[in-house]
Every structure is written in structure tokens, then in C-alpha cells.
């Protein structure tokens, strides 16, 4: 059976296996018991027959004498018509009379008083049960010891044993059937709450994240609690998402409203210069808005837990050089000193190159917006790290975690979207990297460091 197949099957298998073993043991015991019982019952016949014969043994003409009672022999044969053998033996082991020379018992020789011995023997290929009575004459003159040996075939015993076994077997089988039926019902009943839980989950509205309140046994209650915890986390995630959407729409509405207002104002004027100024404002605002929309899109993608970027070995030095190449012109025009601090040898980590570029672009952009004059990009090893340092105003330590959340701006005066650092954080998480925010070495400004996990190369 497939171990992961069915809980029902597993329970049944593990309960049935010991039950069957127990049943087999019971059967074995019944078999042995039936044999012993049948022998006990039939040995009484050997007992009675030897006694009936022994009572007829006399001392006559200076020798043992027996007036054999036919009933003693009849006694040994029942409905099964057993073959019957008897023999009278004197103290010296001489055969006095009988229809067979039955062997002596290897046990202790004639003890005082009556001794009864039983055993299984074989005679001319016939399995016999032999009974031996050792006794002595109750006579005035002679206390001569003698032995009466009788034996009969086992048909009656075998029949009785079979009969006993059959009745036992019926009992054992009935018990077994009862046990199996009970087992089936019990397992079914025990697994019922599982079905209830399944139905409850299946019947839920897919949009609701309400916790389950279902009466369940302890083991399943644990499962229910785990489910409820997951649901609670999902509720929080959804609340975050809703807030994010609200923030996002707010962020998009503000510049759109500004554009609308500026356009209306300009339309009321007649001077083409005013129009031009207005158009320029509209242009720059819509450009910023488009950039905001782009950032929102990439943030949404990064936040999707199902999204796993394909990671390839990327040399961080190359990455930094590429970023400096991309942004140097723009920075130079704005009078900002953009520099790179690379390692002499390549340092490869598993990464998505475009995401790293995006992160660096966001960090450079962020520093520019907050008025940095000098921005340094760099790479450090052991562990592999990527950093961006500026000489801007920096972020107070107590706000450094907050700024990683979307739409939270480090400084209220800037014109940033408040998404840059959130995006960088998302990228860092995608790479299993840690994002550290700190003061730069010079004591002012901001230093953002992305610390990659130690990768075996």
C-alpha cells in the first residue's frame, strides 16, 4: 500500500496486522488446547478400562489370573470404532495375557500405590495412546505388583479435537469478524471530523479570510489553528495590499490633479508663453507620474511571493561599472560626483542582473533627490556586498526601517515617490540578501549596503 495513500488504509493496516497475529496465536492455542482436552477426556477411558481390568486380576494357582471383563475393552472403543489392545504384565515384565505385547513405560519402575501413566506410542504403523496402571494385588496372601497396559487408536480423540476446534474456530472467527467490523466503524468515525473539516473548507467563500470556528478533536484543532494563523497572516497581507493600492491611487491622483489644475489655469490665459510654461510643467509632472507607475509595477512584481527570478552568476564589479556608466552623464550634468570603488578581482554571486541594475538606479536616484553631491558605488567581499554611499542628509536611525515601506518617504521635503527603497528591499529579498541602512563613513549621509549570502563558487 502506498504509505501516503490513505489515512484510512494506513489505520486499517496497522490495526488489522496485530489483530491477525492475535487471531493466528489464538488458533494455535485452540489447536493445542483441543488436543490436550481431547486427550484428557479420552485418557479417562484408559483410566477406567485399566481399573476395570485390574479389579479382575487375582492370585490363583500361584500365579496372576485375569477374568477379562469384555466391557473394559468395549469402553475403549466409542463411535469412532477404535482399535483396542490390552496386556497384563507381571512384576518381572512377563506378558501374562492380552492381545498385544504393549511396550513398558520408560518411567520409574513400579512405585508403591496406584500409578497411572499415559503416552503416545506407535505399533505396526498405528498411532496409539497407551495407558498403564501399576498396582498390586489386594489379597490376603499376596501383594504381587502387576501392570495393566491398554492402548487404543486415536480416531475418537481426533474427532473430538476437530469438534472442539471447530466450535472454537467458530468463536474465534465470529470474534474476528466483530473486531474487524468494529474496527471499520471506529476508523470511519475517527476520521469523520476530517471530512467535516474538508467540507467546511470547501464550502467557504473564496474571498473571505475569516478564521474557521469548527468544533474539532484536539489533533485536528491544531490543524485548524495552523490554518487560522495562515489566514490571519493572509488577512494582514491583504490589508497591506489594500493600503498599498489606496496609497498608490492617491499617489497617482495627486500629480494628475496637479496636471488638470495647471491645464485649466493655462487655458484661461491668452498668452502663448503661459501655455508653454504650463505645458512644460504638465510634461515634467506626467513624466514623474509615468515613472511612479513604472515603480509601482516593478514593486508589485517584486512583492509577488510566487515570483522567482532566474539567478545567474553575476560579477558585482561589472554591475557597479555598468551603473556608473549609465548614470555618470546625468549626474555630471547635475554637478554630482559619481564614483565606483571596485575590487581588483571579479566577485560573482547568483543574481538577476537587471534587478541589481534597478536597485542601484533606485539608490542613485534616491541620493540625487535628497541632495547628495557625492555618490560612491562599491563592492566588498566576505561576505559579498554591494553598497551605495552619499553625502546627503542621511536618515535618522529610528526611521531606517520605516523607510523601507512603500510610500514612506524619509524626508517630507523631497519630490521622491517613496517607492525607491521599498523596491531595493524587495530586490534584496529576492536575492536572499540583507539590506542595511547606516551612516556613511564620513559621519553624515546615507550608506545602503546589500549583503549577499555567502555563496560557494
Amino acid at each position, binding site marked *: 500500500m502506498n504509505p501516503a495513500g490513505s489515512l484510512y488504509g494506513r489505520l486499517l493496516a496497522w490495526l488489522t496486522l496485530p489483530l491477525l497475529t492475535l487471531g493466528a496465536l489464538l488458533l494455535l492455542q485452540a489447536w493445542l488446547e483441543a488436543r490436550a482436552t481431547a486427550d484428557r477426556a479420552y485418557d479417562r477411558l484408559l483410566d477406567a478400562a485399566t481399573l476395570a481390568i485390574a479389579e479382575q486380576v487375582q492370585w490363583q494357582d500361584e500365579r496372576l489370573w*485375569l477374568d477379562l*471383563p469384555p466391557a473394559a475393552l468395549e469402553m475403549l472403543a466409542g463411535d469412532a*470404532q477404535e482399535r483396542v489392545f490390552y496386556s497384563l504384565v507381571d512384576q518381572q515384565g512377563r506378558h501374562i495375557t492380552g492381545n498385544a505385547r504393549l511396550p513398558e513405560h520408560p518411567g520409574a519402575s513400579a512405585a508403591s500405590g496406584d500409578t497411572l501413566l499415559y503416552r503416545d506410542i506407535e505399533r505396526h504403523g498405528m498411532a496409539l495412546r497407551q495407558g498403564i496402571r501399576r498396582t498390586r494385588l489386594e489379597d490376603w496372601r499376596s501383594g504381587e505388583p502387576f501392570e495393566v497396559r491398554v492402548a487404543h487408536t486415536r480416531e475418537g480423540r481426533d474427532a473430538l479435537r476437530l469438534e472442539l476446534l471447530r466450535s472454537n474456530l467458530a468463536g474465534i472467527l465470529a470474534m474476528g469478524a466483530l473486531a474487524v467490523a468494529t474496527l471499520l466503524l471506529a476508523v470511519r468515525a475517527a476520521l469523520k471530523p476530517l471530512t467535516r473539516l474538508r467540507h467546511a473548507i470547501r464550502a467557504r467563500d473564496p474571498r473571505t479570510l475569516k478564521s474557521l470556528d469548527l468544533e474539532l478533536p484536539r489533533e485536528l484543532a491544531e490543524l485548524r489553528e495552523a490554518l487560522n494563523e495562515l489566514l490571519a497572516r493572509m488577512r494582514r497581507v491583504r490589508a497591506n495590499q489594500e493600503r498599498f493600492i489606496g496609497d498608490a491611487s492617491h499617489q497617482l491622483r495627486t500629480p494628475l490633479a496637479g496636471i488638470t489644475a495647471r491645464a485649466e489655469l493655462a487655458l484661461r490665459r491668452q498668452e502663448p508663453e503661459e501655455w508653454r510654461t504650463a505645458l512644460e510643467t504638465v510634461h515634467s509632472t506626467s513624466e514623474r507620474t509615468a515613472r511612479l507607475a513604472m515603480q509601482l509595477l516593478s514593486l508589485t512584481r517584486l512583492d509577488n511571493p510566487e515570483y522567482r527570478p532566474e539567478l545567474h552568476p553575476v560579477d558585482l564589479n561589472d554591475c557597479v561599472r555598468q551603473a556608473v556608466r549609465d548614470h555618470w552623464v546625468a549626474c555630471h550634468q547635475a554637478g554630482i560626483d559619481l564614483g565606483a570603488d571596485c575590487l581588483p578581482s571579479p566577485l560573482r554571486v547568483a543574481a538577476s542582473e537587471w534587478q541589481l541594475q534597478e536597485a542601484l538606479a533606485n539608490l542613485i536616484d534616491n541620493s540625487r533627490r535628497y541632495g547628495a553631491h557625492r555618490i560612491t558605488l562599491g563592492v566588498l567581499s566576505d561576505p559579498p556586498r554591494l553598497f551605495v554611499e552619499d553625502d546627503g542628509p542621511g536618515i535618522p536611525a529610528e526611521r531606517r526601517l520605516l523607510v523601507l515601506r512603500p510610500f514612506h518617504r524619509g524626508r517630507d521635503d523631497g519630490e521622491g515617490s517613496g517607492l525607491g527603497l521599498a523596491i531595493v528591499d524587495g530586490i534584496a529579498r529576492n536575492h536572499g540578501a540583507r539590506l542595511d541602512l547606516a551612516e556613511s563613513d564620513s559621519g553624515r549621509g546615507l550608506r545602503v549596503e546589500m549583503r549577499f549570502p555567502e555563496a560557494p563558487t
Partner: protein
Amino acid sequence: MKCSALARVALLGALCLLPVVACAEQLLRLPAATDAGPARPLVIHAALDLPQARPLLEDFHRRHPGIDLIYRNLTTLELHERFLDHPDEVDVLISSAMPWQFALANDGHARPLDSPHLEAWPAWARWRDELIAFTFEPIVMVIHRELADIAEPPRNHAELLALLNTHRQALAGRVASYDPVRSGAGYAYAMQESQLSPRYWDLVAALGGVEAELVETTGAMLDGLKEGRFLIGYNLLGSYAAPGVAAAPDLEMIIPDDYALVSQRLALVPRQAPNPQSAELFMDYLLSLEGQRTLAEETSLGAIHPALTGPGTATQLRERLGDALRPPGLGPGLLAGLDRLKRQALLARWQREFRRALATDDSADSVAAD
């Protein structure tokens, strides 16, 4: 398996001649029909006189002409001895010496039969499906009509006892019975009767009182009765007496109505039988309705088959006599009769009782008053 030397001695001394009047050996051969394929031999040894056996054998041979049948009629003693010497020369063993036949089966000499007729066969007439009783022969009294001049003929043992005691002088020397010492059958009957009732010993004493002639065979008693030497014959084998009585108008056969012993022929197939198939065929025939009908109609052996009624069947005898019929049970009790000491004890008692009347022969009255 060889019989022990002791048993052999006991045998010789014990059941000498059972009621087989036969001389040493009678042989009957029914050769196979030449056109019935390869001959299948069948050797039967029996203590059963030819006049009784012949109708059965011929009927059987008519039904199975391919059988090359050899039938030897032996005395029970010869039969037993010969079998123990050569257990592999005979296919079917038939004898009226029930204890001996039983002893053979008990020792495992017999082959279990597998006949379709066994189901219908009465349980009291088979043992372990190895030993089959197939005849039913009551032990009877035969009286001569002259007895009517002295007294009413006895109908049962009690009346016989009274008759013997009251007419001791008149009947002196004119009663015959088996000698239990010399005749195996006589010993067997004495054994059974002594177990049935202690009054048997009074009867033995009364037989002694009339100085009964002790003979060895049914035939001897029958001859004496025919000649008029004997007036009463006690314990004749009914199956042998019946034809003789039928032929002699002076004689009358009486089955005692208080109890009547029954002798039965026992058949067995030896384990080492050379032709077991033929033996099975013959046993099948003995048990079949056809065989039993032949037995009832053409012999005086008495058919056992429960489906048969009418003259010559056990069913009819039972209807007439009911519980009075005492067939010896086919069981280990029969073995007691073979016990050496038992035999000595019984015969000693028998002889003592038989001489009781003579020893204390003061007057017939004192015995009659017993």
C-alpha cells in the same frame, strides 16, 4: 505381521472346530469365461459350507464372468492359521469365528472397503468399514416330535430349564449340546450366554443333570436327532439346521423367544490381498441387494440388507422375535473371548456347573427346587 507364538497356542487350544461340518478342504473353482477378456483371479477362503456358498458364488460368477474364482471351504481354525502363515494369498476371508475375524481386523490386517453399498449397510453389521457381517443366523433348539409324549415342547430357555429339571430321568442322555471345550462355536455361545444372564449356569447344571451328550458340530446333533437318539438339541446353528429340519418331518426347529443368540459370518479383504479389485467386486456383491436377495432366497444364511423383507431375512426374524435376538456386537468385547485366561476361567466354571448336579446328586427334586 506374524501372530505371536502364544496366541497360536491359544488358538490351537481354543476355538477348535466352529460349526463347519466340512472335511479338511473343499474346493470350488469357477473358471473365467474364455470370451470375457483377460481372466481376473479371485481367491476366497471361507468357513462356509459349499451347499450354502454355491448359489452365491454362481450368481456372482454369472454377473462377472471374467473372474477366475477359487473358493476354499476350510474350518475356522485352518482358515485362521493359513491366513497368518500366508497373508498375501487370499482376497476375501469369510468366517463365522467372529472373535478371530475381529482380532484380525483389530490388528490392522483388513483393508478399508469403499463400497457404494456401505452407506445403506446397518452400522451394527460393520466395523470401521473393514469388517462386514453379511449373514444373520440364529442359534436354535431342535426337538424331536417324540418329546411331545413327555411334555410340551419348550419355547424358550426358561421352559427348557423347567423341562430339564422336571423330567430329568426321562430325558437322561437324550439331550445334545455343543461341547464348549472341544468346539469353538460351543465356547463362543457359552461365553455369550453367561454374559446375558447368570441363570445360564442353572441351565448348564440342568444339562449336566440330564447327562446331556456334548458334541462338536451342528451336524452331529442333527444326525442324532434324525435317528431319534436325541429328543432335544440345544444351540444348533440355525442356518445349518434349517435344511435338515425341513427334510426330516420328525424334527421341529425352535428359535427361543426370550433370547436367541445370533451368529454372523464376517467378511474382510486382507491388506495384502493379491487381487484387491476382484475382492472389492465380490464384497460389493455381498452387500448389494442382488447378492442379499440370493442369500435370502437360495440359502438359509439370513440376509441382512434392510431393504429386504420376507422369508430368509433378518428383517422378518426381527419382526417375529424383536428384542429377543442378540447378535453379538461387532466390537472389542469380542476380543475377551480370545483371552487365554478368560477361556480357562470360563471353561472351568462351565465344567464345574455341568457337574454340579452330578456331584450333589441326592435327588432330582433338590435340583428342580433350585
